[in-house]
């Protein structure tokens, strides 16, 4: 199991039954593979689909049915289409139970930076700022460190995506919960020690008693869950 699968399988446990969930481009889209059995989730894509499904069989792709990354997807029975104003009315209006987004940095106050690295090519924020401002729960799915440097930092050095405190940070080493009282270490990845986590974290991390090992959603090949069924 690689780091991405580990993160996706842990995040998948955050899916609630009968909710609307947005998965960001990249690592977060992997979460859709690990929906726990018995959990019915509608996946929303900000370009205007609720209930998108897996990529169709070869030759059956529809040019009008893509996800926010432009990749071909399918639609489950019960899917619907939305224009951009309505799509973001749902996002901004708190109708998403959760968004899962990649991250460049999260700081001690729980603020996320994930849209811009000054001095490099500027891509733009796309829908990220609306998603972080509007979703009821924001889960950041990212590597704990990049090129040996912590991505959880005392204060953002990159431009913030929103002023809001995210709900949970899931990395390949740990589950960290930002609280009004700072970051709290909630879980550790299998085989990882608290000391290893603290050494790879650039911000104060509270440890309260015994830190349990991460639970993970089952492997899909061993009987997957369902999306909107």
């Amino acid at each position: 199991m690689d780091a991405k699968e580990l993160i996706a399988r842990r995040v998948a446990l955050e899916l609630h039954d009968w909710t609307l969930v947005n998965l960001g481009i990249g690592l977060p889209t992997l979460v859709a593979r690990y929906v726990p059995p018995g959990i019915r989730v509608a996946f929303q894509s900000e370009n205007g689909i609720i209930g998108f499904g897996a990529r169709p069989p070869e030759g059956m792709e529809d040019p009008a049915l893509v996800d926010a990354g432009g990749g071909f997807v399918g639609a489950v029975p019960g899917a619907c289409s939305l224009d951009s104003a309505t799509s973001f009315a749902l996002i901004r209006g708190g109708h998403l139970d959760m968004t899962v987004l990649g991250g460049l940095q999260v700081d001690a106050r729980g603020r996320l930076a994930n849209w811009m690295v000054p001095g490099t090519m500027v891509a733009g924020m796309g829908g990220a700022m609306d998603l972080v401002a509007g979703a009821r729960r924001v889960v950041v799915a990212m590597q704990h460190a990049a090129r040996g440097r912590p991505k959880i930092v005392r204060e953002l050095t990159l431009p913030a995506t929103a002023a809001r405190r995210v709900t949970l940070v899931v990395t390949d080493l740990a589950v960290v919960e930002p609280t009004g009282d700072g970051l709290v270490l909630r879980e550790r990845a299998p085989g990882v020690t608290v000391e290893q986590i603290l050494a790879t974290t650039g911000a104060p991390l509270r440890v309260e008693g015994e830190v349990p090992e991460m639970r993970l959603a089952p492997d899909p090949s061993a009987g997957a869950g369902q999306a909107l069924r």
Partner: protein
Amino acid sequence: MRSAIKATEAARLIPDGARLMIGGFLAVGTPERVIDALVARGARGLTVIANDTARPGTGIGKLIDAGCVARVVASHIGTNPATQRKMLEGEIEVELVPQGTLAERIRAGGAGLGGVLTPTGVGTVVAEGKRVIELNGREYLLEPPLRADFALIRAHEADYFFNLTYRLAAANFNPVMALAAECVIAEPDEIVPLGAIPPDAVRTSGALVHHLVERRH
């Protein structure tokens, strides 16, 4: 699958004193069965946010007749003399809102916007006591968003995921109200299998609907 509830169960979910948005325009597109059940259970002290209060004996008019309503936020009560009389007698408090402003305030409440900047009502009694914001040499009223505890929605078709369609002029306030309440209860004319409503025909996603009232028997 999600399961449908009876209109009487829907009425039981709604406590006295609740703040309701109710779809419809002169009772066209109004969930009559949930209203009948509210009347039957003797609901009291409701706030009703709706375009109008219909006519006595129809739609929201039935709630007015039965004394269920303490407060009305509407664009028009002229078709219902009972609402007018109860307002003058102090039994019902009425806030009048221009129809487009009402629709937009509800949409703002559902879309997470802080308010509506509208030219409608500038220079009239509607502007009294409201913040006026000047932008590019024009004046706009800052109207606050509206939200409710419950939205009572009348739909044409619903599928098992609670996706909804509407027909002709029966859509009116229903689609925006389905965005703006903590609990959305939809009363459909028909319930059809998942997949029977094509994705582009869905007007309100089932992800917004909490309870579906079963088909009329």
